Structures are given as C-alpha cells and as structure tokens.
C-alpha cells in the first residue's frame, strides 16, 4: 500500500524522526520507511528542501560530522524550538484525525 503524503505533514514526520537524537538525511528517510513499513512514499530528494527550511526557521541545527564508518554527512538535531513545533503539530494532527474519524463514523441522523 502506498499513500501520498499529505502536504505539510512531511515536516512533522521529520521532526518526529529527530525526536530521539541527531540523524543525517538518509537516515531520516530510512527511519520513515521502516517505521511506516514503506506505506508512505515520497521522492527522497524532497526531504532536503524541508530540512534546510526547518534549520532556517531554527527548528533544527545542522552540523557536519563523521559517522561510525568515517563517512562525512550532515547531521540534524532538534532544537528546543523544533521540539515545541513538533508538539503543537502533533496536537493539531491528532485533532484533525479525531474530527475526520467522527465524520467517517457518523451515522445518518
């Protein structure tokens, strides 16, 4: 099953991916695939404009680093501001899901 990603939710998913610690871009993409069992599909490249946009807004901090096998990559870390953003987006998302669910489960009056 493949779902197209709803506009704007990519940011939230990336923030969530970083909630447990720094990751580089490829790592984020892989984490998303594994966690959703490949249900979500996006062009992997679309991750990068989003990452840079979020660092510009101060949600993420980017730093070049060396991985365990000495490969150079850019690592992203969640900032305090990013964490707050994640909470508020998750809350909004929850309300949205609830509302949609109510509509779908409604019975004719």
């Amino acid at each position, binding site marked *: 099953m493949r779902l197209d990603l709803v506009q704007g939710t990519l940011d939230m998913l990336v923030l969530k991916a970083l909630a*447990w*610690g*720094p*990751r*580089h*871009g*490829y*790592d984020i*993409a*892989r984490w998303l695939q594994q966690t959703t069992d490949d249900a979500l599909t*996006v*062009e*992997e*490249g*679309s991750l*990068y*404009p989003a*990452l*840079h*946009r979020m*660092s*510009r807004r101060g949600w993420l901090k980017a*730093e*070049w*680093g*060396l*991985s*365990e096998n000495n*490969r*150079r*990559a*850019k*690592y992203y870390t969640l900032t305090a501001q990013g964490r707050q953003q994640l909470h508020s987006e998750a809350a909004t998302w929850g309300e949205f899901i609830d509302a949609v669910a109510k509509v779908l489960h409604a019975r004719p009056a």
Partner: protein
Amino acid sequence: MLRWMPDRYRELRDLVWGARPDRDVDEELATHVALRAEELEAQGMTAEEARREAQRRFGDAERWRRETLSEAELEQRGRHRTERLDTIRRELRLALRSLARARTFTLIAVLTLALGIGANTAIFSVVNGVLLRPLPVSWLRDLVVVQGDLPGLDLYGTPISVGEALDLAERRDLFQSFTAYSRPTLNLTGAGEPQRIAAVSTVGQFFDVFGARPQLGRLYRAEDSRDGNHKVVVLSHAFWQELTGGDPRVIGTSLRLNDTAFEVIGVLRPDFRYPRTAQLWIPREVLPQHLVPEQRLTLGLTAVARPQPGLTVEQLRGQLGAEAKRWHERYGGQAYEPTAQHTVVAAPFVEFLAGQLRPILRVLMGAVGLVLLISCANVASLQLVRSTGRARELAVRAALGAGRWPLVRQLFAESLALGVAGGVVGLGIGALLIRLIARSDAAQFALLRDVRLDGAVLAFTAVVTLVAAVLFGTIPAVRASDVAAGEVLRGSARGTSAGPARGRFLQGAVVVQVALALVLLLGSGLVVRSMNRLLDADPGFETASIHTMRVALSGARYGDRGAGMAFHDALLERLRAVPGIQMAGMVYGLPFDNLDNSSPFNVVGRAAAADEPKRHARMWYAGGDYFQTMGIALVRGRLFTDADDGNGQVVSVIDETLARQFFPNEDPIGKQIAQGIESTIVGVVRAVKKDDLAEPDKATIYYPFRQTQWMVSNMSVVVRSTLPASATATALRAAVRELDGSIPVFDVMPMAERVERSLGTRRLAMGVLGGFAALALLLSALGVYGVLSYGVSQRTRELGVRLALGARPREVVTMVLRGGLGLTAVGLAVGAVAFLGMGGALGALLYGIGPRDPVTLATGAALLALVAAFGCYIPARRAARVDPITALRAE
C-alpha cells in the same frame, strides 16, 4: 540511531574560507544517493542496478538540488547577519563594562575629547557660517566684488560710482549678472511712528546676482532703475512681518519713504538676508546729472557680480584694468586725476564678506586644532597608561589563546566607545558655545548672529571624532597587544613589560602636550596683554558722562540749507537748557560710528616733500561745543566760534597727526590748505581714534558746520550730562520730538558703549583663546600626571628596593619629580622654539606688544611649569609611600 562526532576540520574550513552552500548541498545530496546505493547493493543488486534504483527513489535530482540550495542560501545570509551583530554587540558590551570599571579614566578621557571636539564644532560652525555659507546661493563662491583702487591716494577697495556701475553692467562678456548698491537709511512716515529704515538702493540685476526669489508678488528688474518713474519697493520677509504681521494684501499698497510714495511689489523669502540688516530694496533712481564726468569718482556703490563661467579672477582683473583705461581716455582729467592712478579690481565676494573677522578666525582655527591635538595625545597616553595596568589581564587572555587581533579589536572597541561618547558630549558643548558666541558682543557682526550648528558642521565633527578615536585607539591597542604574555606571567612582569618603545611613546606624548600647551598659552597671553594695552590706550577724547545720538533730516523738508542750520541751532539750544546737561555739540564724523569720509588735500603754495605721506585726510564737520563736550584737547591756536559762519573767512582745525606729518618743524596756524575748498588753519587738536582703538593715526581736518557748502543731513549730537544714561537718552529724544515729530532719532548710546562695541571681536578672540589656554593647561597637567603615575606604578619594585635599602622618602620624591620636570622642560623648550618660529601668526590681533614678547614668554613658561609640577607631585608622593614589603611581595 547513529553515533557520530562533529567534523572539526570542516568547521574550520568554513570559518576560514566562508561556507559554500552549493558545495555543501551537493555533497549532502550525493551522500544520500551513495548510502542508498550501498544498502541496495548489500541486499544483492549489482552496483549498476543499485545506483539506478537509488537515483529513481531520490526523484527529480535537479529540482531538489535547486530548492534545497535556495533554502540553504537564505539560511546562510540570515546567520551571517546575526553573527556579525552578535560580535559587535559582544565587543561593545565588553568595552562598556571595561570602561565602567575604570570610571575616573573614562570620565577624564571623555571630557578631554568632548572639550577638544566641542570647541572644534563651535569654531568650525563660525567659520562655516562666516566664510563658507553666508548666503543661500549655490554659486556664492563664484561671486566677485568689484572695487576701485587709487594707489596714488593710498586708497584701496573703494566703492564705485553710478556711471562706472552702469558701464560695467553692460559688459555681458564678463558678467552673467552685475549689480551695484548703496545702503541709504530712509524715513518711513505715515505708518505709525516715523521710522528709520535700512534700505538697499540697487542698479543692475541685484536679485539675479544673489539668486533671490520672491515669497509674494514679484521683484523689480534692472531696467527699473534707469529712470525715476519706477517707485517700487521689495520688502524683506522680517520687515514684512513687522510691518503688516504677514498680511499678503501688502502687495500693491504704498509706503512713504523720504516723503515719496513707493508701491510694494514683492516680499523676499525668509532665507534671503543680504545685506543682513536690510529691510527693503528699491531700484536706484539714475538721472542724467548722475552720469556727468564730474560724478565718475563719486564713489558710493558696492558692486557684486557673477562672472561668466570659466573666467578666473585673474583674467577678470585684467579685463577690468583695461576697462578702467578706456574710462580714463574717454573722461580724461575731468574725472580721473592721473596722480590717483585709479583702476578697477575684482576680489572674491566671500573674502569681502568675511572682512575683518578673517585673521581672528584663522588664529582661532589654529588654536582649536592645537587643543584637539593635545586632547588626542592626552587620551592616547591615558589609554596606554591604563592598558599597562591591564597587562596581566591581557597576558592571561593571550595565554588562553586569544590572538593578537581579538585583543586589538577589543581595545579598538573601547576607543570607539570613548570616541562616540566624547563626540556626543562634545556636540553638546559645541552647541552651548555657539549660543554663547551668538550672544556675545561680537554678534554686532551680522554674520555671527546667523551662525548655528548645521549638517556640514555635524559631519565635520563626526569625522574629527572618528579620526581622533582611531588615532588614540589604534596606537595604544597595537602597543598593548605587544605585551609578551610569558614575560608578564613569569612575574618579572610589572617592572619590565612596558619596554623602551612604550616609554618613549609616552615621553613623546608628554613633550608634545607641554609644547602645544605652551604655544596656546603664549598666544592667548599676548592677546590678553594686547587687550589690556588697548583698554589703557588713549582714544583722544573722554568717554565718561558723554552721550550721543544720530539725527537724520529728510531732504524734502530740510533741503534748504538755512532750515537745516536753524534746526540744529534750535536743537543744541534746547539741549543746553535741560537740567543736568552741561554742554552740547554736534559733528559729522563721530568717533566709533563707522562712517568714513576722506579725500585728498593740498598745502597751498607748497609741493609735496619727497618723504611726506600721501596728502589725504579725513574730513569732518563740527558745530556747537563739539570739542569741549568730547574733551578733545586744543593743542595750539583756537577752536571754532559762532563767528565762523557763512560770512567769515573759511577756517579749519587740524589734528596733531596732520600737523606732525605735514608741518613737522613749523607752526601750522595761519597756513592755507585746500580740500575741495581752501581754508585757513586756526587750531590744532589732539588726534582721535576713529573706529578702532588700535588703528594707526590718520590725518584729519575739521570744518565748522556753519561753513559747509551743502546741507549735511546726517549729524551726530553729543552732550555732556550728569544724568543717568537712560534719563539722558530720554531727554535727547524728547528734544528732537518737540522740535519736529517726523524726524527719526537713532543710535542713541553713551560714548563708552560705542567704544566698547568696537572691542567685541577682540574680546571674543580673547575669551575663546583664554578658554583654550586654560583647557590646554589642564590637559597637559593631566597628561603629565597620567604618565608619571604610570612610571611610578612600573617602578614600584625598584622604589621598594631603594626604600628597603635605606633611601629616604624625600629622595624618592625628588627622583620622580626630576623625571617629570625634565620632560616638562623639554616640552617647554620645544614649545618656545615653535612659538618664536611662528611669531607672526597673531599679528592682526596684537596691539602695543611684540609677537615675541619676552615677558609673556617667561610668564607663560613659568605658569605651565608650575601646573606641570602639580601634575608631578601627586605621583611622586605616592612613590614615597610605597611600602617595601608589599612592593616586593607583590612580585
């Protein structure tokens, strides 16, 4: 989750070369694709398949690269701005904190700078107002004043005549526009109290030359002065306000000036104020009788012109000389006496405007430059002294890895903060000084009243401030950062960290300060002593209890000579009857009224001797008891009597100067002189200063008022009165009003006040120079103090050892004093030599004293030495109080 560590090499590279977002993004995206391919390959794909699959999953690589890059660039720009701001803010905060800790230092440094900069602003404003921008005209610097020179009569820079002005106005090849004007005072009647009006009577294109434009109505043209029919008048903005309260309906109304109706056709804009005190402008009535050859040397007009573009003043002078030659040929001896060597010259108008203020302004500019230099040297050495106190702090920071430049940057930031603070406070001081100058006596010079702080002055001050900040900021900062960290920390430290270079710099600063201060002190000393001599100078008349006023009779009512005489007789009669008034007289040519009237004369029957000065003398008319009232002493012969009237022999009284210059070894009484008319000398009186106490003597001839050939309408009345000044003034006005209510009285003033007014400029110069000198004294004392304190703090250990080994405190005091006074002595010597070298610079301001007066030199040097000794004494005492134990343990 991955384990990773920051890539320090990469951070460093970005720091040094600047981050390159494009390379960054490319590498990041490439890494992604490579990692994906690696993983796919590990799952069993061939390298080629893995690469293609990885690229497919990545999607539109070009698009993602573009979008990512644009985000990355935005991000970088934002980050740079915040980083730069952060750095500046941090440096500034550090600087302010550090300055706040050193409160005394900061206070002294800011004050030093503020005084230097403030004085600069004020003086520059004056120079700017007087020399650079007195009129709102963009071509002000192009304007020239056209004047006559008569070297044969020793007359230079004279006005020109109407005929000459009209000829010059025709020269369109030389001038874009040309005007000549005189400044009559007119009687305004029919609008409340009769008033004396300062008018400007113009020929040529007055308003074009000065770029004046109307606020209301229109201005008149050059043609309007060609015949007498154009009785029109243009008002100044201020006079329009005063007269009508700013009523625009004034256009088309009529004003009665000297009993003639003039139609008001325009009002000028408020920013046009030339000539400064003028209230209205009228076209000059030019009639045929003004243009006859005999009138060619009736010189009454100031001519100003805007030359054709590209014409230099030198070329213009050549053309004007040729024009004058043509006049001589055309009008010959009828107009131009060959011995007068008449010619016409041009000079820059701005110089003409600045007039007699110029030499004083130059001296003040010099003084202000010196003060600024002293201020800078002072702050520089203060900084240096302070930075030594901080040697340890700086060494620690250097040892902890702070490089040379961050340290320099911090010291620079401190200097800049000081400079800005000094500049701001200085601007306040400058504004204050300007207000004081505008209110001072010298403000009788019209130009000074309009001087105010303006944009150009602000810019100038800002530049001076910045240069000063950089000057005293950089040198000590670079020197302070030289501190060898190891040395300071090793503890040999405080004694040696200064190094000989810094010591020399400090000593140099002291010598320069003392030398500059001495130059200023001596300059102002000479000016002050000149002033004292001037105040003691004998003007040739008395000033106590003498009161004066000017009375102007209008030609329409008193055109008949007899009527004018009768009026003056009646006025003197009336004044003598006032209780409290003892004597009364009148004169044309009252001392210090700034009128001039002089012409050539001849001693009848005797050719001029070779060594004789030019035969040219002032020409005055005296009536009533003028000489007795003024206390002008009779030296020989007799004064005028009532019998010296139209029926008697024509007589004259000469002054001592004329007698000395032209009758050196004989009695002038009974000799005949010719100055237009022939007269017999009947008396010799004391010489009188005319308009300036310092002026050289000028031969003078007095004629009896009753024997004048024509009506003199503008006489001054003098009385000797025991009444208070205000009561005398009231009595003078009342006497005129009772005789004729339509006659304006003006310039009512005690004689002493007239003389005092003439001293305004000198008093201003004296006050300002005196202020500068006091400032320089204070600053150099501070400089000596600062440097010696530094020296003592450097030598604490040495002094401790000496004291421990049995040196007496007195000896230590002497040792320190000797060092300080030695530097002072060098400074004094340098200053004295410099002063003697530039001795002539004050020339115009001096009176009765040589520019190298030894008494002034000795007094000034002694005073400065005394003040410097005070500056030395405090650190010397501190040196004697050094506790050997503490001093040694501190190391």
